[in-house]
């Protein structure tokens, strides 16, 4: 490590040329920080969850979607990063994402889920909602378009799967009365918020139609040209006297049927679906984090790895799991 320098938040930047002028490699990694990174960013010692060895700390993707002529229709980046507090306390990442294109190539389906922290098995709820939910939704879209889609039935079906999985898990864990529990009791062990976005990959006048349905406080945004962050759902906790952590979450099914929010996203813009780990520091999108994400996401980052590094920026006291899936339409030549 001779010649290395420690930066203010602990990342070690190695000046390659000084170390060995004949070395035939280059590159460096330095993590992102917005404003004051906080003590946790450099001092947290990440430890594993003794019950979660196969639960990855960070997952990421970076892909392009092509049309029949192998031309790019859109770029997709996704990352789910375990939060500093979960790293410090040795608990698994409870966020999850899923995305897939329908088999007819017409739609991209995105799911982002945030397992409710108080449930020991909530990451399983998030997995089902994000991955299985997206699979179910993509399959169902072959017969019905998003305009006429039976969203309430779909959300209920996802909830049922989570509930079933929860009971099975509890039975495996030796909980005698797992079958007799109410859904509310099951939800104390595993629950998740989820947001689904369905993007029409065939643009109308250049713009892609987007349908968004959510349960709980996961949010969808469009990063408009000029760097304006436009939320597709009400921003949470506005006007509350003190912070409250209560959320709507599956397998509890909302009392009112979910109503899709519609928008469009065009080349030069991005649709970003995110959990509150990144939505909270983004706030209304007008502060330092909004500026940062505008700067780095006005065009698609080069790779999923780079996108994950953006998602994992440090900022004092924001230590929750972070997940984002972003969609950038590509202009047709």
């Amino acid at each position: 490590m001779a010649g290395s320098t420690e930066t203010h938040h602990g990342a070690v930047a190695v000046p390659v040329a000084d170390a060995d002028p004949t070395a035939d490699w280059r590159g460096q990694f330095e993590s992102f920080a917005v404003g004051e990174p906080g003590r946790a960013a450099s001092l947290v010692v990440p430890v594993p969850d003794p019950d979660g060895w196969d639960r990855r700390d960070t997952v990421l993707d970076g892909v392009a979607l092509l049309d029949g002529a192998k031309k790019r229709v859109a770029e997709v980046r996704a990352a789910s990063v375990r939060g500093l507090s979960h790293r410090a306390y040795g608990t698994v990442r409870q966020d999850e994402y899923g995305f897939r294109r329908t088999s007819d190539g017409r739609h991209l389906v995105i799911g982002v889920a945030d397992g409710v922290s108080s449930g020991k098995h909530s990451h399983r709820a998030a997995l089902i909602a994000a991955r299985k939910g997206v699979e179910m939704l993509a399959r169902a879209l072959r017969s019905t378009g998003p305009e006429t889609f039976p969203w309430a039935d779909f959300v209920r079906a996802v909830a049922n799967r989570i509930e079933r999985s929860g009971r099975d898990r509890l039975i495996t864990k030796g909980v005698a009365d797992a079958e007799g529990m109410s859904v509310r009791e099951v939800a104390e062990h595993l629950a998740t918020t989820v947001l689904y976005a369905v993007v029409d990959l065939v643009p109308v006048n250049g713009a892609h139609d987007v349908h968004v349905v959510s349960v709980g406080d996961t949010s969808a945004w469009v990063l408009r040209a000029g760097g304006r962050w436009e939320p597709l759902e009400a921003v949470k906790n506005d006007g509350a006297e003190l912070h409250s952590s209560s959320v709507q979450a599956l397998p509890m099914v909302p009392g009112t049927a979910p109503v899709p929010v519609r928008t469009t996203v065009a080349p030069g813009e991005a649709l970003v679906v995110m959990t509150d780990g990144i939505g909270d520091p983004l706030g209304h999108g007008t502060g330092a984090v909004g500026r940062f994400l505008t700067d780095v996401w006005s065009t698609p980052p080069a790779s999923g790895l780079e996108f994950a590094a953006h998602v994992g920026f440090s900022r004092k006291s924001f230590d929750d799991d972070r997940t984002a899936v972003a969609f950038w339409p590509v202009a047709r030549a």
Partner: protein
Amino acid sequence: MESEKAKLLPFYLVIDVSVSMTGDKLKQANAIMPAVVDALADAPILSDKVRFGVIDFGSDAQVRLPLCDLLDENVSLPALTVRGATSFAAAFRLLRAEIESNVKQLKADGFQVHRPAVFFISDGDPTDREDDWRGAFAELTENFPIYPNFVPCGVDDANPKILANLIHPATGPKAMQMYLMQNGQNPADAIAMIAEILISSMLASGQSIAQGGSGLLLPDKQDLPSGISAHSSEDFV
């Protein structure tokens, strides 16, 4: 910062410095703040979120450490000294004013604020008229949306029947507790033990926030230091 909302957890220590606190009790009272600093230095997740303030009270009440980030290098810890009588009413009134202005300021600075937690330590009876301290406590806890979670702690000659009135909330799922020095215990040691309870509550609450909770978590009864007992409001009717 105008739109981003970091979550903060305000903790207040409100401590009796009436003349009866002279000697080892005062020495232990002064040891509380450095102990909290040490605990926070080892808990970076928590130390990014906790704000800590100290109010002392004798005949009057004074803010000795304005609510702050204890690990901030510009913070210097005050030295508590004894003065006068034991005015609970003055302490409650000043605490209410502090909470109101601190929370207002933190929110103006763009923070989300968890419900404040108060550890109140006394070694004797209030010297105010009963209707006076009761009235001041009611103003702190009733019709005040940012009322604190209030944990009274009694050592030496503190009267459990009086302190039990200060447990807030007294009932419900988020009910607080009262901590009392057990008979025969050295009161100065008891103050050090109460400091331990304060610190473990702080650590547990930080972990609870990480797990989606938002309240003050007090230690389980079996985890209390020996020499201290925990009581709910029903224990003294």
